């Protein structure tokens, strides 16, 4: 509060730049508390997605007849992106109410709390990429060729998009949570819906084939509408698709049509992220003065 003249308007989103050191401290705290004092801390954060991936890979390769090449990598890539966004938003959800005692006693930019939670989840996500690397090394040995490619670095773009999108959604949800504590249940139901709509353990190509059958049978191509909906109106899938394009696609031969990424996908991805950020900041800013009366 002291020394520097106030550059940013109080309550403005841009005040986060004045508190950037606080962001670093809060993220450091979250990471430290997660990994400190448990030797297996980091190992767990890799082991957990690996185990889930193995279970899902076994189950779904029995369930579906379709062959998706390098299925474990496909699965793990999709699931990591979904988990990143889902964890980020659900951690941000309680960020304001969890810091109630602090907000009652001192002035801090309230944006900092959801923002720091989402940032720590992003750092965690980067750490958990270790699981993906492990799987890719294993498959490199099985296939007898190196599955890594310079394309892999493209995930930085996807992480940026998903991060901005999560900040927007996280801000929106965290301000709602102050007024309606049961919004968490609504969110959980919603996120389960998104999980099934994000083509994590199946592929969108399935719908296109089904649509062909429907057209041949003279019925309305409902499956096509569903595929369009997932591809154009589900930002989570848009990020998963891009992520797979950079990680899974270089590893498989004969990439199917539905996995191809076009500039439109990036346009949509960034579009949704920025739109969500605007919406989140707008509602958060409008509500933040009332927080103190409800926490």
């Amino acid at each position, binding site marked *: 509060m002291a020394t520097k003249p106030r550059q940013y308007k*109080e309550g403005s989103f841009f005040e986060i730049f004045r*508190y950037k050191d*606080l962001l670093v401290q809060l993220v450091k705290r979250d990471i430290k508390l997660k990994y400190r004092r448990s030797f297996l801390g980091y190992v767990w954060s890799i082991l957990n997605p690996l185990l889930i991936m193995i279970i899902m890979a076994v189950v779904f390769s029995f369930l579906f007849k379709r062959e998706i090449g390098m299925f474990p990598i496909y699965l793990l890539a999709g699931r990591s992106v979904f988990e990143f966004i889902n964890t980020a938003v659900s951690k941000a959800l309680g960020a304001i109410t969890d810091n109630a005692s*602090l907000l009652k006693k*001192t*002035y*801090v930019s309230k944006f900092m709390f959801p923002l720091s939670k989402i940032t720590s989840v992003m750092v965690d996500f980067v750490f958990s990429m270790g699981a993906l690397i492990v799987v890719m090394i294993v498959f490199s040995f099985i296939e007898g060729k190196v599955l890594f490619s310079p394309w892999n670095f493209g995930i930085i773009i996807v992480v940026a998009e998903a991060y901005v999108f999560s900040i927007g959604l996280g801000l929106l949800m965290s301000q709602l949570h102050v007024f309606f504590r049961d919004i968490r249940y609504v969110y959980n139901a919603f996120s389960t819906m998104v999980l099934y709509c994000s083509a994590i353990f199946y592929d969108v190509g399935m719908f296109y084939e089904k649509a062909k059958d429907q057209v041949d049978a003279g019925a309305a191509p409902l499956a096509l509408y569903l595929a369009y909906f997932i591809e154009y109106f589900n930002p989570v899938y848009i990020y998963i698709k891009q992520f797979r394009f950079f990680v899974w696609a270089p590893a498989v031969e004969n990439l199917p049509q539905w996995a191809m990424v076009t500039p439109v996908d990036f346009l949509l991805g960034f579009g949704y992220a920025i739109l969500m950020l605007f919406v989140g900041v707008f509602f958060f800013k409008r509500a933040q003065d009332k927080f103190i009366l409800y926490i």
Partner: protein
Amino acid sequence: MENLEKENASSYIVEVNNVTVRFNKANQKVDNLKEYFVRLVRRQLMFQEFIALRDVNLKIKKGEAWAIIGTNGSGKSTLLKVISRILKPYKGSVRVEGSIASLIELGAGIDPKLTARENIYLNGCILGYTKQFIDEKFDAIVEFSELEDFLDSPVQNFSSGMKSRLGFSVATMVEPDVLIVDEVLSVGDVLFRKKCMKRMKEMLANGTTLLFVSHNMGTVKEMCDKAIWLNNGEVVMSGDINKVCDEYNSTIEEKKAKEKKEKQKK
């Protein structure tokens, strides 16, 4: 005209203009969707008004030390919260020139799981300082808090006195333009309390403006030269400390005497 405004701006460091703070005192807090819709349908979404402060005016010049006195629930803490930007007034405006450090509750941002060292950085950043600035002040903070031997142990093992020492040291690491103190010094041992008083007096001597809430009239008179007396959210009196305190004391005495009489009657 411009000159006049400039002069006004420089003459008062804190300006509280006709501030009214309103709370919702509804019987039951509606904080979930289910309840909200049930009440919406039944038309039971009531707003019960509670005025915590009514038309409060306070103008403080640079370097003054003001005491805020009044009985419990008279709005003292609310006034401090409005000045330190935690609470937005419902009506009226608050203007503060320069930096504020508020000691409304010591160790507000202290995380018990972190060590003292980590907490100094975290707390300093919450107060809006940069890491570089805390680096520079780190030794002074540690020295003042007398916690050299406990720097790397988690704060959850600290006593409440140690915690408040840590909180006070961080909060006063720099000389703010306005220092807001709300009965925080009731914890800690006598020696540290004296040290805090000394630090506050030093700050006062260096031109810091002080806002102080305490029920201890002795301390108040020692520290402050002006006072504002609140009762049920309204200003009863403000001005010279001795006048206000004497008036306040005599009113309290009268009240006590009345209550005694009533008891005796029964």
